[in-house]
């Protein structure tokens, strides 16, 4: 069923990431040349599926047959492969091929949406007629000619397309991680490795005559370990993901994966119960950016604000945090999982300041909310696939470096916890309450990291926690993990990061005594 309440979630889902392809047959050399000619060539890639300007014109004309302010079509071809290693062998693979087109009609803040996997003229017209039902006025004309969106950036350059990478080149990655993880510690019992690669190409064309194609690669690698000590078992994992080709998997990255997965698992044997109650919490640089995603990112998505249901709906221009707090959402970082050359509404993707010098600055917009607020779209209009209408979504969300040092932050805490790794989080947009689940952390006692803790949820309220961020270090790190953000039933890849920060007080959901 449809999402019922506005609760948004974030999780590490690389293990289930639908991914990629095989096919020299699907993408032959001639077609590859068409793709290499780039998005500025208008319809390049999708011509192989019989997509023409005439077809798109007909679809947009049908979409606007009852009026409406705007219409667009979103074609997508996405081929993904997953390879799984279990019990020492890569003996399972999953391939997923998605091909379809979605047609959208927008009238004010009302949306009609239809999609089809049948890319014939009749199939697309049917989807367009469905979308047109949102409006009830006279027909308006579609575009008479199209202009390709030019000068797209190149934020995920691909040397070797995933379609051209043979399984034999991928399998050693999985076998290598398995061997190294098993050899790293005598307590290792089971290793699982999941490799995913995905080649997605999109085409967006709209009633203003814009047309753009973008080839969007994605890959991820997940390493899970089960260890046993004195009859006890613990499991943990490490994963990496990016919009990249196979060159992403450098020896250094693979070694880090093994080191992190093994140490994060074996340290769990030493963990003591986490305390319960309010206390200072220090968040390690990197994956702790999950705090920003939940505490402010979702609440700043402009659809919630134009509907007046976000806790940030009346706070633009107001101070929300200390002056040294600056929070951005951007899609410009090369190879990042949240990077984009163009959003799913054909709008440019750049950098957006959510909080500048402690002042709430800019919402994250799609074209509907940008029109509502009379501002330029911020390039946050995203969707899971052709089966969904776009909405404002985060890309890569992080906090800029601040004036403090990690050492002084830790030294300042008499009794609290230090959080290093996370699995998932969630937020209630209107109440502002949010959580994140800490997989690994430490007690802080008298300014020093002492015993490890594990499996503890932390719960706070967005605006209250922003006010309580009282120290920010200079060690910003963007996490390399495969985060997927869920909203209204749609999952999209995102990145996040943060320097070491201190939250003066927040509720730690442990089952033990206060530290």
């Amino acid at each position, binding site marked *: *069923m*449809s999402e*019922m309440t*506005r*609760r948004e979630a974030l999780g590490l889902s690389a293990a289930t990431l639908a991914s990629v*392809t095989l*096919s020299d047959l699907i993408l032959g050399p001639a077609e590859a040349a068409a793709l290499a000619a780039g998005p500025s060539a208008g319809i390049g890639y999708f011509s192989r599926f019989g997509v023409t300007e005439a077809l798109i014109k007909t679809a947009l004309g049908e979409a606007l047959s009852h009026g409406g302010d705007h219409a667009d079509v979103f074609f997508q071809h996405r081929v993904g492969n997953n390879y799984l290693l279990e*019990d020492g*062998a*890569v*003996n*399972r*693979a999953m*391939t997923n*091929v*998605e*091909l379809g087109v979605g047609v959208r009609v927008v009238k004010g803040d*009302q949306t*009609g*949406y239809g999609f089809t*996997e049948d890319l014939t003229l009749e199939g697309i017209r049917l989807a367009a007629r*469905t979308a047109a*039902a*949102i409006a009830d006025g006279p027909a308006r004309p579609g575009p008479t000619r199209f202009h390709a969106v030019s000068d797209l950036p190149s934020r995920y350059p691909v040397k070797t397309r995933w379609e051209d990478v*043979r*399984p034999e080149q991928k*399998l050693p990655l999985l076998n290598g991680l398995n061997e190294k993880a098993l050899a790293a510690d005598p307590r290792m019992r*089971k290793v699982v490795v999941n490799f995913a690669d995905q080649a997605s190409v999109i085409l967006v064309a709209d009633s203003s005559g814009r047309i753009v194609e973008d080839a969007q690669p994605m890959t991820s690698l997940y390493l899970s370990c089960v260890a046993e000590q004195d009859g006890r*078992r*613990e*499991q943990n994992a490490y994963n990496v993901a990016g919009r990249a080709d196979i060159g992403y998997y450098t020896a250094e990255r693979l070694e880090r994966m093994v080191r992190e997965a093994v140490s994060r698992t074996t340290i769990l044997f030493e963990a003591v119960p*986490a305390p*319960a*109650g*309010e206390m200072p919490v220090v968040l390690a640089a990197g994956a702790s950016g999950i705090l920003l995603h939940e505490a402010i990112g979702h609440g700043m998505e402009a659809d919630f604000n134009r509907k007046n*249901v*976000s*806790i940030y709906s009346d706070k633009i221009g107001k101070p929300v945090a200390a002056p040294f707090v600056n929070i951005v959402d951007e899609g410009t970082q090369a190879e990042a999982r949240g990077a984009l050359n163009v959003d799913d509404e054909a709008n440019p993707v750049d950098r957006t300041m959510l909080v500048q010098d402690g002042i709430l600055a800019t919402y994250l917009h799609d074209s509907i909310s940008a029109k509502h607020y009379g501002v330029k779209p911020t390039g946050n209009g995203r969707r899971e696939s052709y089966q969904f*209408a776009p909405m404002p979504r985060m890309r890569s969300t992080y906090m800029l470096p601040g004036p403090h040092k990690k050492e002084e932050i830790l030294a300042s805490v008499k009794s609290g916890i230090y959080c290093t790794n996370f699995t*998932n989080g*969630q937020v*209630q*947009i*209107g*109440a502002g*309450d*949010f*959580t*994140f*689940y800490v997989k690994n952390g430490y007690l802080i006692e008298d300014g020093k990291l002492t015993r490890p803790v*594990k*499996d*503890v*949820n932390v*719960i706070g*309220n967005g605006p209250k926690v922003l006010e309580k961020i009282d120290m920010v270090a200079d060690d910003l790190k963007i996490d390399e993990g495969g985060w997927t953000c869920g909203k209204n039933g749609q999952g999209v890849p995102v990145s996040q990061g943060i320097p070491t920060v201190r939250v003066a007080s927040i509720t*730690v*959901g*442990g*089952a033990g005594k206060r530290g």
Partner: protein
Amino acid sequence: MAASRELFDVAQRCIDLARAQGAAEVAARAYKTRDVTVQWRDGKLEQINEATTRGASLQLYVDGRYSAAQSSDLRPDALARFVADAVAMTRSLAPDPHRSLPDPSLYGNRPAADLQIDDPAYAGVSPEKRRAVAQALEAGARGVKGADAILSVTGGVNDTRSETVRVHSNGFRGERVDTQFWSYASVSVKDADGRRPEDGAYAGVRFVGELPEAETVGRLSAERAIARLGAKKAASAQLPMVLENRTAGRLAGFLGQPLSARALQQKQSFLEGKLGQAVGSEKMTVTDDPLLPRGFGSRHFDAEGISARRLPIFEKGVLRNCYVDTYYGKKLGMAPTTGSTSNLAWAKGDKDRDGLIAEVQDGILVTGFIGGNSNATTGDFSLGVQGFRIRGGKLAEAVAEMNIAGNHLELWKRLSAVGNDPYPYSPLRTPTLVFDGVQFAGL
């Protein structure tokens, strides 16, 4: 109604193509689903989504190797290339002696009872009717006492009709047609401190005529949201927890993964070695029931084609069965049961939610979880919660921004009461559950 002939043709074509490429055995599934959502917000239509989606998926057994593949591109040439690629790719993998289609004897004795999951009235649901229901949901919400606090109301309806067929090269052939109808409403309210809490209500049925009145669902959504006003964090404490039936599914759902043969075989289950042992209190009796009429998990055969039957999971707290599929069953030396949950049937108590609350002197009613997680390997869990304090058997102030934590192996032994109110809108069908001595974190 029977699934369309065309879907069987697609599935059979996949099998023929794969065998022509050298696959030894093949399982093919083809599906077609129509899904319509109409959403209404604050006095006007907000969104219409409507589409019919389709696709095919394959499980391939080639030269002792295995892979799965799925495609939405069913054009004949594309399908042929897709299958050829998938078979070729399977050959690049390591052999796996444990992979096979299910033993055909498990396809036998398939139940034939009408599951009542396909509403013949589906085709008569009109766009006008959907809009009228969506609109009535809002009207119901706006009609409650305290509606002045309402900032926004979203009401919507969603209905789907799915046709799925499954054909295996070793003799299985099955089909399924099912319908679902949902109505939902979500309400945001303005609190004195600037918070905008929200809650909602929803209902889902197999037969459109059984949907509750839209006004009732709308009213409940607003009442729940308004009840969140003034919610505060309470002190950390160990207290009895009454867990509302609608919310209990999330907690019970965490047992699914450790009950799976994969988790057992991969040493990622805190339930390993517990078959025949008590892991919960005597109040915990749960049966997997695929044959429940009109259930959301009802089925004649499972995802491998294995004929459905009732399966006791817990009897008075004792673990009786796990979810064992063909593959991990072979690895473990266990006979397959079924690889996935259908509907859960819980042994009922004799009181409803309010009756159970009346028996608690000092505790917390949990009406919603927020985030958190559960460790399937160790049983540790930590979950954000909201709800209400219970004092002297009565609901008191609303609480929010709190958390519960513990270990499943201890928690389920402290299950002290079960309601008579299985939640009808989920296949997990959890009743209200009462646990003693739960660690709440707050102030």
